[in-house]
């Protein structure tokens, strides 16, 4: 072995060993776990462990609580994701406009929610949504509208959590869009203007197509993040009302770490993994077609 290879081995060893033992091995073990009936009795005595093949997955697909969590998670991602993209693109376009002064101040303000602690802002929003003294309802009653039980209404609760997620997350994707916008050559807009293209035409035929790769990156990042939603419903609703905010990661947490049905919970986690993998692939394919 050359001295350089030997040095490389030593430099890589700490990171690779840590990742292998505390990330990759548990992921692989997670799949093995999902094929067993590992539960509270197995923790006490490992002789109780039985191999079930795919039975956990079959049970999962046959249970209504799984489909509820699946539907809620997808609803959160399919509504919250595009909403985040639209809001952050609008903010990026505004901040990037030539006429705007104090760009970095606005950028900082819009980004601030991103660095806040999710658990803490979930608690803040829980009070903002309060049916009686919450600020949102006071604003509604000030203009003569009826107050809304945001988190108590099964039809609205998940949407209320989506609004929190958009508020918390749009600054991050906004920064990525600003970087993308700054990479578009100015001559393209120049040429479009000479051809008589107005604001909308420039946006439609220059900005959007040129942002293609950025959309892919933003789409993947937002989707991966949103499908893992856990803390917001854990703090704000505990999955209620009527399980309308129960998500897949919450289901995994409750089954695995409260009822210790770890085999079953591992199957939930793997289905989530499959969904995230599929979402990533679909977005990459869509982007290729353009």
């Amino acid at each position, binding site marked *: 072995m050359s001295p*350089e*290879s030997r*040095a*490389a081995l*030593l*430099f*890589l060893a700490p990171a*690779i060993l*840590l*990742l292998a033992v505390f*990330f*990759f091995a*548990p992921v692989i*073990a*997670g799949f093995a*776990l999902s094929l067993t009936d590992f539960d509270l009795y197995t923790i006490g005595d490992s002789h109780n462990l039985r191999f079930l093949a795919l039975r956990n997955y079959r049970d999962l697909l046959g249970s209504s609580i799984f489909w509820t969590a699946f539907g809620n998670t997808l609803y959160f991602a399919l509504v919250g994701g595009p909403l985040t993209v639209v809001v952050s693109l609008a903010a990026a376009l*505004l901040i990037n406009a030539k*006429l*705007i002064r104090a760009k970095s101040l*606005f*950028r*900082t*303000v*819009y980004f*601030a*929610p991103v*660095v*806040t*602690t*999710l*658990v*803490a*802002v979930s*608690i*803040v929003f829980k*009070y903002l949504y309060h049916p009686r*003294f919450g600020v949102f309802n*006071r604003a509604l009653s000030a203009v003569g509208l009826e107050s809304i039980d945001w988190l108590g209404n099964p039809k609205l609760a998940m949407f209320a959590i989506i609004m929190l997620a958009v508020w918390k997350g749009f*600054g*991050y994707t906004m*920064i*990525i869009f600003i*970087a993308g916008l700054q*990479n578009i050559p100015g001559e393209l807009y120049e040429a479009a203007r000479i051809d008589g293209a107005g604001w909308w035409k420039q946006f439609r035929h220059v900005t959007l197509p040129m942002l293609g790769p*950025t959309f892919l990156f933003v789409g993947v990042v937002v989707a*991966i993040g949103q*499908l*893992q939603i856990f*803390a917001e419903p*854990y703090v704000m609703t505990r999955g209620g009302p009527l399980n309308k905010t129960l998500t897949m990661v919450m289901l*995994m947490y409750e089954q*695995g770490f409260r009822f210790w049905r*770890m085999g079953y*919970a591992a199957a939930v*986690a*793997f289905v*989530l*993994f499959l969904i*995230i993998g599929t979402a*990533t692939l679909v977005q990459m394919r869509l982007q290729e077609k353009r």
Partner: protein
Amino acid sequence: MSRRAESIVLHALLIAGGVITLFPLFWMLSASLMSTGEATSLPPHIVPHAPTLAQYRELFVRLNLGRAFLSSAVIAVVVTLGSLLTSSMAGYAFAKLRFKGRQRLFGLLLVAVVIPPQVGMLPLFLLMKKLHLVNTYWGAIIPSLATVFGIFMIRQFMLSVPQELLEAARIDGASEWRIYWSVVMPLARPILATLATFMFMSMWNDFMWPLIILSDTAHYTLPVALANLSGEHVQDVELMMAGSVVTILPVLLLFVVLQRQYISGIMAGSVKG
């Protein structure tokens, strides 16, 4: 529309957006300075009539939140320092040292980006139990000591370090460790600062793993302690807002001070990645 009118409309839109964005944080701070019951009074108070630190005193004196603050700080600082070391060593090796299977190993690591961490959490908990690390700081620290994200970030930066610099040091007889520590690391200071900010903030804000691995109140981090308190003190709006301020303020201040590094880090990662 004239340029002037257009400018006014655009600025008005941005300011309105800014007010909406900051309002929840402003209300949190304001309510945290109210006396008990004031935030729910009618007609509503937007600012406290007689600002008081009573809620903060309650948190630190009676509810012992200082302890959770310390736990959060210890875990975030140790992870930040440890991951800077492991990421910079590995990132340097991937960028600058030639060895067999370099591309393949790096490609394999990048697969981790699409694997949700929850997939490994159940076996990781069982592993920690075997190692007697459940309900210890180490149990919260070790899984984050090396991250693919950090290795990737450092590698991208190190690719731009001129090879001649390393060759010159080698000809002078410097050891590989010395080249890394005394030649490369000083050059990497800006990216190390960016990574440190990212790591500290993500550990400070982390919730799910600490919730799982830390089971008694003496070890709780701030987010876990806060989630726990919010169950017991649902009615105490002002108290919970003070707890939220204590949790959010350190990272928010850190961001305001280091925002240049932080935001340029995201931009660099997104454009190249």
